[in-house]
């Protein structure tokens, strides 16, 4: 049945290709002060950033891996074999025509310039360590919206950048936030002025091209009072036999009444360790929503969170994780209620295929002195094979009167009868499986913006095709 193999292969592993690229800037292999200084030198960091990095390196070195509770697989990462900085240059262009040909063709193949024309308000494209392209539509820029790479952000807009940088996720939050703080490069800096509602999404695309490489982008988004923004990120990497590390830090700030939605659809190759810290700070009556779709990688550890600092603020995490053969998706959400009348909602769906393992880890904290706080947590797991695995660790501490919490969890399986029924209607086993999986995530996906639900549906189909029959 699979006839046109060449076309199928490209489609199946959309991100699994890589072109040879000449890097002018290479920090070499391994991590020490010399490497951190090299990064600071080539990026021409201000002194405060260099000091921040060097301090973070010490924190990183002093912190143990969290293997007392997390996967032992983390120990397979050899920090001395990773390359921490690779770039052709440090300035992103504003025009695709100026992006070097050897890099541009990667993004063209991934369809980024086309999506930008179709439905985005702005795009940043990062290739290994640095953004090579970053641009917003003129009309959006004229409203005062800032959308640049983190390097440019900290230099050009220090008064906003410095005020918030590292405030939501301190360096010492965990070993990987410390690592990121030491060697960060790339990522987005966004500022939306008061009252500005950005109609179309801003998008960043993170591409890993090199082998043995670590990508450490740093994203900081500030939505000023009453503003609105949707930000989307996509990521891919080619498949190598050696480990690739992706360890980002993303900090969001929603000031009074702002609405900020952050969408991730990642499709990492199965050699990527994806260890990302993401957290938002929600001020009074603001809303932060994480939509997080995790497909691929060898191990993902990611628990987007919201600190509900202001009265009546709202936090939400909607996540989908698909753990295929040999993969471990250790994902979840954190909701820290720190003001009265705050609400949070967590909906997590995971699918485990073959020997894949999906873990949900939640943290919901409502202290005793708060009033009228609410949390709703739902986590549903779908197991495809007898060898598939799922675990749920929902840590919910809700104290005080007038605070309420609702928690539901379910584990289900696609039954053989259901697959037979679908096959009897003419669907192949793989099609039946992927339709079942899409059905499982359907009520959640319906809440995503159209372009992303289509992309996600396609990724699920490709995963199922590769794993059945």
């Amino acid at each position: 049945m699979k006839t046109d193999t060449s076309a199928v292969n490209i489609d199946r592993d959309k991100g699994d290709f890589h072109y040879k690229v000449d890097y002018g800037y290479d920090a070499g292999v391994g991590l020490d002060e010399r490497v951190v200084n090299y990064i600071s030198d080539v990026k021409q960091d201000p002194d405060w950033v260099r000091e921040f990095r060097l301090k973070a390196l010490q924190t990183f070195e002093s912190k143990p891996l969290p293997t007392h509770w997390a996967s032992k697989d983390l120990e397979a990462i050899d920090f001395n074999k990773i390359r921490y900085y690779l770039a052709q240059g440090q300035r992103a262009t504003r025009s695709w025509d100026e992006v070097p040909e050897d890099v541009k063709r990667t993004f063209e193949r991934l369809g980024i310039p086309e999506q930008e024309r179709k439905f985005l308000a702005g795009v940043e494209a990062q290739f290994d360590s640095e953004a090579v392209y970053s641009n917003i539509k003129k009309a959006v820029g004229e409203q005062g919206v800032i959308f640049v790479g983190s390097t440019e952000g900290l230099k050009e807009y220090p008064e906003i950048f410095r005020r918030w940088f590292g405030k939501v996720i301190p360096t010492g939050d965990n070993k990987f936030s410390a690592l990121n703080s030491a060697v960060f490069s790339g990522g987005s800096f966004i500022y939306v002025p008061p009252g500005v509602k950005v109609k179309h999404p801003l998008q960043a695309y993170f591409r890993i091209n090199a082998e043995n490489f670590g990508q450490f982008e740093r994203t900081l988004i500030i939505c000023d009072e009453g503003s609105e923004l949707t930000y989307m990120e996509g990521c891919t990497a080619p498949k190598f036999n050696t480990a690739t590390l992706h360890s980002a830090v993303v900090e969001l700030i929603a000031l009074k009444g702002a609405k900020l939605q952050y969408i991730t659809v990642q499709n990492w190759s199965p050699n990527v360790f994806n260890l990302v810290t993401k957290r938002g700070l929600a001020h009074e009556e603001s809303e932060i929503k994480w939509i997080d779709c995790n497909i691929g990688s060898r191990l993902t550890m990611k628990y987007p969170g919201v600190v509900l600092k202001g009265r009546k603020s709202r936090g939400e995490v909607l996540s989908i994780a698909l753990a295929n053969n040999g993969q471990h998706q250790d994902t979840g959400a954190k909701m820290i209620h720190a003001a009265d009348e705050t609400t949070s909602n967590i909906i997590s769906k995971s699918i485990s295929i073959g020997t894949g393992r999906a873990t949900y880890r939640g943290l919901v904290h409502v202290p005793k002195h708060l009033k009228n706080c609410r949390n709703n947590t739902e986590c549903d797991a779908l197991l495809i094979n007898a060898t598939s695995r799922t675990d749920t660790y929902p840590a919910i501490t809700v104290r005080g009167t007038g605070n309420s919490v609702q928690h539901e969890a379910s584990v289900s399986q696609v039954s053989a009868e259901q697959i037979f029924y679908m096959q009897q209607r003419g669907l192949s086993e793989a099609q039946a499986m992927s339709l079942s999986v899409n059905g499982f995530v359907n009520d959640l996906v319906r809440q995503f913006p159209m372009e992303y639900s289509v992309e996600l549906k396609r990724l699920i189909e490709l995963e199922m095709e590769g794993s059945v029959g």
Partner: protein
Amino acid sequence: MQQLEIKNLRVAIGENEIIRDLSLSVGLGEMHAVMGPNGSGKSTLAKVIAGHPDYKVTGGEVLMDGENLFELDPDERARKGLFLAFQYPSEVPGVTIANFLRAAMQARLPEGEELEATDYYAKLYEKMDLLEIDRSFTSRAVNEGFSGGEKKRCEILQMAMLDPRYAVLDETDSGLDIDALKVVASGVNSLRGPNLGVLLITHYQRLLNYIVPDFVHVMVHGRIVRSGGKELALELEEKGYDWIREHAGEPVAA
């Protein structure tokens, strides 16, 4: 050649032989009723024809227009024109009827060809009206939370959409009140024609008042013990299954 031909079929589950040397041919354009008491193996027959993996075929064959079905996967059989209306249809959580049928119809198109959405919905609404199914059903998940009658109607809707050459309807009448039965029967009757052969499995004669068969077969303990015209159903109704069992030399169940 233009027939669904069951030849000396033997089927077992474990050590237990359920279908015991059964032969039956349904020609294109014909309506065959198979009647039999509970446990006689009717659903087993239906599912084996469709390719259910739980059953072991120990002898015989089933040919569809001359092609050996046992060499095809269940989905290939379906795409070649075989349809089974299940006695107990499965739920497909989260997948709407509209999306499910769309995927099923898309699967029948040659690679690279896309189903035309407008035509598809026009046809879907037409068939839903015919079966008196509310339009809101298109956005409900397949069989999820459906009543027995709704499930049966949904099966016939799928049959109407997929235009099979041969359809096996397994107790499509069970659990239906008389009004629903009439709707389902008129739906099936509207699909009757020279390009459809039907194997209509039922426990009761009642359905055959509304869908009048060309042939009636009585199945007892895994084999066809008697075949005849539509009068056979009435005779059976009058005299009961025990009469048949005695004639067939089968033990009369307690």
